[in-house]
């Protein structure tokens, strides 16, 4: 069971609901046919007729059953840990990647991923060691981030302050990570080392965004979760720049909403005072307070 062909078939069945012909890319038709029958017998995958297939023998598509999906989850985790160990044993400082650190480490809402984080400049070496296609390697520019990380259940996760700064400065999916970061700031407000946070934000050139997130967190919580003097410390280091209004503002104005009503006061303050481009107050509110149990905290 669980040989390379089996694992490949399980991977392919997750998303595309392939037919047997497509699965034959994983191995020969005969092998694939045998594997499918065995996996079906084990209750890992099931087949259903594709609609609109031409006359004659109906074409069948394969999809994973709930048991198959659980197995896929376990397989992914095994592969992730194997690559993590391989990189670690090579002496490269490594942590779980940003998305997974936020979700699994700190219970942040709605972000997942199978990335590994290594110091910038070491990505190429780490990628060469990572064997499984689902595992991505990201380079982190904050010096010493791995040493500041927190270990839980055999994996090192990115430290809280680094997570907030990296979320604020993320280019891949900034709005979602930033919105999730407000929940982390709210829940871990007493654990955050704000001196370190400011230092890291300065290094990352993200003082405006991190400060804006601290401010937004207070507005979302409706109270001073982050102390006034902390906000003032960030505000003093804010770099002034022109920030465009949210697209939502333009859309509402184009639809006839008076300009004075088209922007939330918190969004106006983030733009005018913090000079930051962050998700809207309403977007953050959609996920605010939505946090599960994290392994680190």
């Amino acid at each position, binding site marked *: 069971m669980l040989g390379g062909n089996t694992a490949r078939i399980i991977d392919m069945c997750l998303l595309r609901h392939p037919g047997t012909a497509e699965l034959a890319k994983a191995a020969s038709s005969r092998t694939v046919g045998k594997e499918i029958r065995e996996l079906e017998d084990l209750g890992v995958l099931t087949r259903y007729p594709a609609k609109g297939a031409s006359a004659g023998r109906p074409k069948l598509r394969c999809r994973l059953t709930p048991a198959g999906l659980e197995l896929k989850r376990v397989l992914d985790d095994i592969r992730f840990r194997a690559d993590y160990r391989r990189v670690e044993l090579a002496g490269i400082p490594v942590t779980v990647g940003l998305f997974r650190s936020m979700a699994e480490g700190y219970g942040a809402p709605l972000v997942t991923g199978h990335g590994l984080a290594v110091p910038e400049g070491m990505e190429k070496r780490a990628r060469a060691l990572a064997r499984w296609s689902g595992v991505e390697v990201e380079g982190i520019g904050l010096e010493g981030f791995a040493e500041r990380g927190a270990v839980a259940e055999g994996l090192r996760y990115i430290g809280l302050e680094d997570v907030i700064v990296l979320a604020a400065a993320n280019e891949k999916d900034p*709005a979602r990570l930033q919105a999730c970061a407000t929940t982390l700031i709210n829940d871990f407000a007493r654990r955050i080392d704000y001196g370190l946070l400011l230092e890291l934000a300065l290094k990352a050139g993200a003082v405006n965004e991190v400060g804006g997130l601290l401010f937004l967190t207070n507005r979302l919580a409706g109270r001073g979760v982050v102390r006034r003097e902390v906000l003032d410390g960030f505000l003093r280091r804010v770099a002034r720049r022109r920030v465009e209004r949210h697209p939502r503002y333009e859309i509402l104005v184009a639809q006839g909403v008076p300009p004075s009503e088209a922007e939330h006061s918190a969004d106006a303050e983030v733009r005018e005072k913090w000079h930051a481009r962050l998700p809207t107050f309403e977007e953050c509110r959609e996920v605010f307070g939505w946090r599960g149990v994290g392994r680190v905290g």
Partner: protein
Amino acid sequence: MDRVSVERLLVELGEALPGMTLYMLGGGVMVLRELKEDTVDLDFMAESNEDLREARRVLKSIGFREYEAQRFERRRVGDRERVDIDAGGFLGMPLTGEMRSRAELRRFGAADVMLLSDEDVLLFKAVTGRYKDLGDVRALSGTVYWDVVLEESLRMKRMGVAKASPGIVAITLRHAGVDDAVVRRFESAGKQSS
């Protein structure tokens, strides 16, 4: 919700809603097409109010709580799931016949789930004005036929759905950093049709 979570929830819903056809849009479709890693929620359109009532009943029976009108959530250990569902349309935009005919069938459990085309997923995302949708619009912009998006946007305008008109879509496309020539086409179509 990552790919496994999306598929797992779809199978669970499909088992509980035999014979029903649901139209899926939003980030869930992008996850299933490998255009993004995960999504905040799954968005559906039922074909009728009767189907919507049945879907709401089933969602509640499998542990979802309706915390806003037609917005459901279920919290489990290590997993959070959110489902938005409406009938005949979404966000005030109707499900048109053309959208139906472009949709791709997938079977989950005993239910048919029709995934809206990338063009229609983009159109729905282009009217929200949310930052987080800009990244999705950018990702979709590499796969769509702009003629199809523009045609559907003009159709919306003719149907009186001003929020999906080409001029509005152009605002989102510009913020998402879509090619200038495409943005100008939508702006120009918006002006001509007004």
